[in-house]
């Protein structure tokens, strides 16, 4: 019988600009060493389901952490109110996200159980941020779950602070796993094709899995977009990807 225990709790860490930001963490109650996972929440916020994902990675044998990227705009607010506030203020600036992601990776590496290897996984806007982390942060694996505007140009007059990353694909320094729904409009299948072509041209290590009958947010168990077949298969690939790249 496996012990199968995890410790999950909220901690404060020093993020970008030395700001104190909230983060949810989960760790197996078993000796290491093991790899760590930074979970990047979706645009609707640091919500109950994001925290469930953090606990799941601990159950899978990783130390895991998710920073509340809206800590500064909306400390202590309900996740939907925090997301609305962040949207009204133009979203999360990339530079600030990178600072917070570096802090999360450092927190994982400072654990006595760490093997020094860290991966990132992000959903929706977090998918793009996971991709960005493979450029800007010292990580050994990155999982982009349907992140929009990795390639493609945001519409004119667009008030949110996102820029495409297509011209930075050469700088990717970690293997990428991409999971996409073929019915998604953000990103479209054509944009996923374009991203795949860029990764190939630059000789990057990557694997993409694309699902028919699934659109955006097919991992979101509490939303009508949830697609169990895509999500179950997607989780299988995520587990294998991190098992390979975070081992050591």
């Amino acid at each position, binding site marked *: 019988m496996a012990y199968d225990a995890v410790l999950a709790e909220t901690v404060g860490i020093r993020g970008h600009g030395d700001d104190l930001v909230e983060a949810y963490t989960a760790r197996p109650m078993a000796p290491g060493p093991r790899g760590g996972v930074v979970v990047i929440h979706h645009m609707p916020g640091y919500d109950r389901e994001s925290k469930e994902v953090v606990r799941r990675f601990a159950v899978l044998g990783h130390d895991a952490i998710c920073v509340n990227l809206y800590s500064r705009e909306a400390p202590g607010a309900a996740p939907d109110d925090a997301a609305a*506030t962040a*949207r009204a203020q133009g979203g999360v600036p990339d530079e600030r996200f990178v600072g917070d992601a570096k802090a999360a990776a450092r927190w994982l590496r400072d654990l006595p159980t760490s093997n020094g290897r860290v991966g990132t996984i992000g959903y929706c806007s977090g998918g793009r941020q996971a991709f960005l982390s493979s450029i800007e942060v010292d990580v050994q694996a990155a999982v982009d779950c349907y992140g929009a505007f990795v390639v493609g140009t945001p519409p004119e007059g667009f008030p*949110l602070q996102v820029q495409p990353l297509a011209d930075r694909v050469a700088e990717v320094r970690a293997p990428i796993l991409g999971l996409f729904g073929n019915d998604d409009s953000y990103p479209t299948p054509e944009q996923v094709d374009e991203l795949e072509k860029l990764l190939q041209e630059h000789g990057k290590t990557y694997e993409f899995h694309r699902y028919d009958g699934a659109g955006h947010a097919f991992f979101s168990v509490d939303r*009508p977009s949830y697609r169990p077949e895509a999500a179950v298969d997607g989780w299988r690939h995520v587990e294998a990807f991190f098992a390979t790249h975070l081992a050591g």
Partner: protein
Amino acid sequence: MCTYSTEKIEVARSSGKGPAGWFPLRTATVYYDHPVHAPDEHTVNIDFLNPEQGPGARVAVELSLDTARELLAALQTTLERAAHH
């Protein structure tokens, strides 16, 4: 919530009622994106906000496309009537 597309307006001389009662509105964001609660994959969402009073000072709606169209028509009709007052 990844269409990202968002219209934002300044709101003046207007009020909303949230969990803590009435408050003056300052901004509104309007966007077509995934809802938190409504049973569709995408809805027209409106957040009426007052940032000075914190994230909880918010009146939010998530409208189906049909409802949003009907609301738009109703607003138009009401505005035309108001012009005759």
